């Protein structure tokens, strides 16, 4: 992942201005046009992307996702962290200060 430290559940993400497009359940995101590849968010990725863009913390996004899926929050949280780190690593988001 990028960043000086590992992301924590209390963190929020700032989304890099990007072009987005829904493709069925997936979300395509282009943050750099010709200069970087288009990223495809799958699974619950689009929902989490929207949640982060809406300003939710990772923990809040995990709670929201857990409510929708019926899974335990503790089960969902590692996935949310992993996905958030993937977003940062792909240059689609930066940890909010």
């Amino acid at each position, binding site marked *: 992942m*990028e*960043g*000086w*430290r590992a992301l924590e559940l209390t963190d*929020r993400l*700032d*989304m*890099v*201005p*990007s*072009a*987005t*497009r829904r*493709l069925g*359940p997936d979300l*395509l*995101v*282009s*943050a*750099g*046009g*010709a*200069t*970087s*590849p*288009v*990223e*495809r*968010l*799958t*699974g*619950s*990725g*689009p*929902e989490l992307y*929207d*949640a982060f*863009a*809406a*300003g939710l913390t990772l923990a809040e996004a995990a709670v*929201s*996702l857990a409510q*929708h*899926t019926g*899974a335990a929050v503790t089960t*969902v949280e590692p*996935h*949310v962290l*992993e*996905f958030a780190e*993937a*977003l*940062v690593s*792909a*240059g*689609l988001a*930066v*940890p*909010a*200060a």
Partner: protein
Amino acid sequence: MTQIDAALLAIASAGLPGAAPPPRDGWHDHLDAVLDQGLAGLFAASASAGMVRIDADMASRLQEQLDAEAVRAVQLEGELLRLAPALEHLGGVVLKGAVLAHAAYPDPLLRPFTDIDLLVPGDRIEHAVSILGTYGYQRARPEPAPGYDTPLGPAVALRHPGGVVIELHCTLASGAAGEGIDVYEIVAGRRHVPLGPHTVAAPSWEAHLVECALQAVVGDGLAWPLSLRDIAEVAHHPWLDAGAAAELAVRWQVAEPVAFGLRAARDGLGLELPDALAGLAYHADVPPSEPNGSARLRRRATLALEVGGPNGDNRLLPALLGHNGQPPSADPASSGRPLPVLSLQPAGALGRPAVPSRQETWSRARPARQRASPRSNGRSPTASGGATGGHAHGNGQRQSADDDGTGPPDAPPDGSPASGAGTSAPPRNGLAFGIAGAALLALTALGSRYGNITMGMVLVPAAGLLLAVAASRRIARVRPDEAWVGRWLVLAVVAKLAASYYRYHTAFNTYGGVADATGYDTYGRRLARAWLNGGHPPALENLRETNFIRWFTGVVYYVFGTDMVMGFFIFGLLALVGSYFWYRATADAVPRLDKRLYLALVLFAPSVAFWPSSIGKESLMQLGIGTTALATSLLLRHRLATATVFALSGGWLLWVVRPHLLALVTLAAACAYVGGKVRGKGGAMRSMMTRPVGLLAVVLMVSFAVSQATKFLGIEELSLSSIEAELNENTERTSLGGSEFEHGSNSLNPLRLPQGAVTVLLRPFPWETDSSLQLVSSIESLLLAGLIVVRFRSVRAALTRARSTPFLLYCWILVILYAATFSSIANFGLLVRQRSLVLPALYAIIAVRASSSNRAPDAPPRDLATAGGVRVA
């Protein structure tokens, strides 16, 4: 004679009001054509609505095509986002493609596009090519001859290494059809239409209708069903003034081809046209026997088809004019041509779930047309708050937060219609100012040779201003989003000249000439006199450190005349170049930077403007550190060749004058390069190839710089204790001169670092000052401390982003190293001078933008069960 495939027309018309439904079966043989002609989206929508049946294999191919089209489209939309400042600067508009997909079609998936079409006036083509060149675009083919890109010539194709192609148009149709089109009118009336959460400049819908019709007739030869669909979508756009569109076509002398395009859409797609457009299309239906009838129109249309149609054929024309050459009925209301029915063939099960009814599906698929909503595709007049005049306001979308907070030059904040009037002429290149500035410098040098040693005092500042204006023009041309930077540079030259003069005044009136500059001046005069008049120049043991400044002062005096004030000006202006290099380095390497704040600080902060403005080491070190900062910025972006040039020049200057500064900047750059997330434009492969080379270079540079620094400082063994001993010696050396303060011992213990940082960056405190200059410096430090507190979130952001934005890591390390080493200085006079060299790094940390503003109260709920994934599409 070939005709356009009726099956394709049926798909192209799918979902339009009054259009006949496409045949339900028999599509297997047409699938290739459907995909080739860009109809995959419309076909998939028809299949989803249960209007056509497809099997699993067809569904799979369809999905594959839709995926590819969507990936391509979103990349192009991302590119439009990246190019937004350039497009605003050029005053151009985006044609077709993304604009139609998002603002005309009910769903962008229905309208694929594979390139970006831009329209700019013909006299701005070269400027546009130049501007887009700064974004990485190059001509796909060289211009055959100078001036070939005339206003009526073909579009200029520009290609980006990332695979994006821009077609740069200077009119709506090549050849004679484009002669009467007023492109200035188009760009002056441009509107901002939504592109997802962003906006893009596009022609008015009236102009776009003309463009679509011309494209269908002249560009595509009425052989491309999707171009007819474009006409249909724009013709029924809720914000289109059909009468104005017809009037535009007449005024631009393209009424005939536009009429043929409209009639082709009407007849081919079963489209009902608004009255004014139906009237225009009617003129293409007038029987041959009538005066000015269709014989002439058909001849024109046929000519258009022969000129512009692919393969030169006119496949659709017979179908449109009717067999035997008879035109269809002149009554617009009854002109809908029934679609042929394809033979029915057995088909497998649908690969995609069908929805309950066609009506419901299309109702959902076309929300904007039937249910106005500000969050729809933006086609609803209500989104603008009014049916008229609200077109551009009605994008209803927030602009994305600009990274630098400046936005494009002269761009309105909300994409209002007034933006249309804001088209700017290409900025002049400033060459004349550059030549004039150089001429003044040459005149100064000439005067010096002939004994006039004082004219430099006037001509050098004038030359500095002229060169600043030239740089300003240059910046406006190559970086249109930073046109304001050039204007600030001109002001900065004025400020620097004033600071240099005040520094001179202070040195000789406040301190009675007791200043380093006096010694350099003495040597400089003797050297210049000896070089000009013959004789023995003073012996200099070497050309390092103080001797280099003496020698360089001699060079300045030799060239421009032995005037001390002029010398101050020259040194001050060189320092200003270093400040700009700092800005360039930071602005290019830190994506979320408050550029205006940062430039204001590095140009106008009193310490930076005042201290490095005299004959002395600070000025050249400001230039040297700025140059190495730019080199580091380039290195961190894998621009190795350019980085090397700046690193060698800036590093050499530091090595000659203050080798320990070279060690500091090299260590900081090495930490940033090794510890930061360094990414190159060429992606992973290029990064993989260049990073080892960069690492090797960094290791060599660090070894050299540290060895030189230890040699300069007289440290025989590199260890913590020896460095601390050297720092203690430095404390003792600097505890002289009248501005010394109680210091205590030095330590490299990290716990002492904050104390050292406060000393280096913020002291003296107001109660520690003993002169007016120190008091001013103290007040400035208080303001700086306040700024750090106010922008503490920026400081925190600069820390958390340090690895992902390695130049911030460079700034952090430089500030830390500076604080650790220069805190040994026990003299406030020296401290405030030395501090000015590292302040640009601290300013970069302060100027980082803390967060974006794209927050909304709630995340939209959806029912997804799996963990999210992200992958390259």
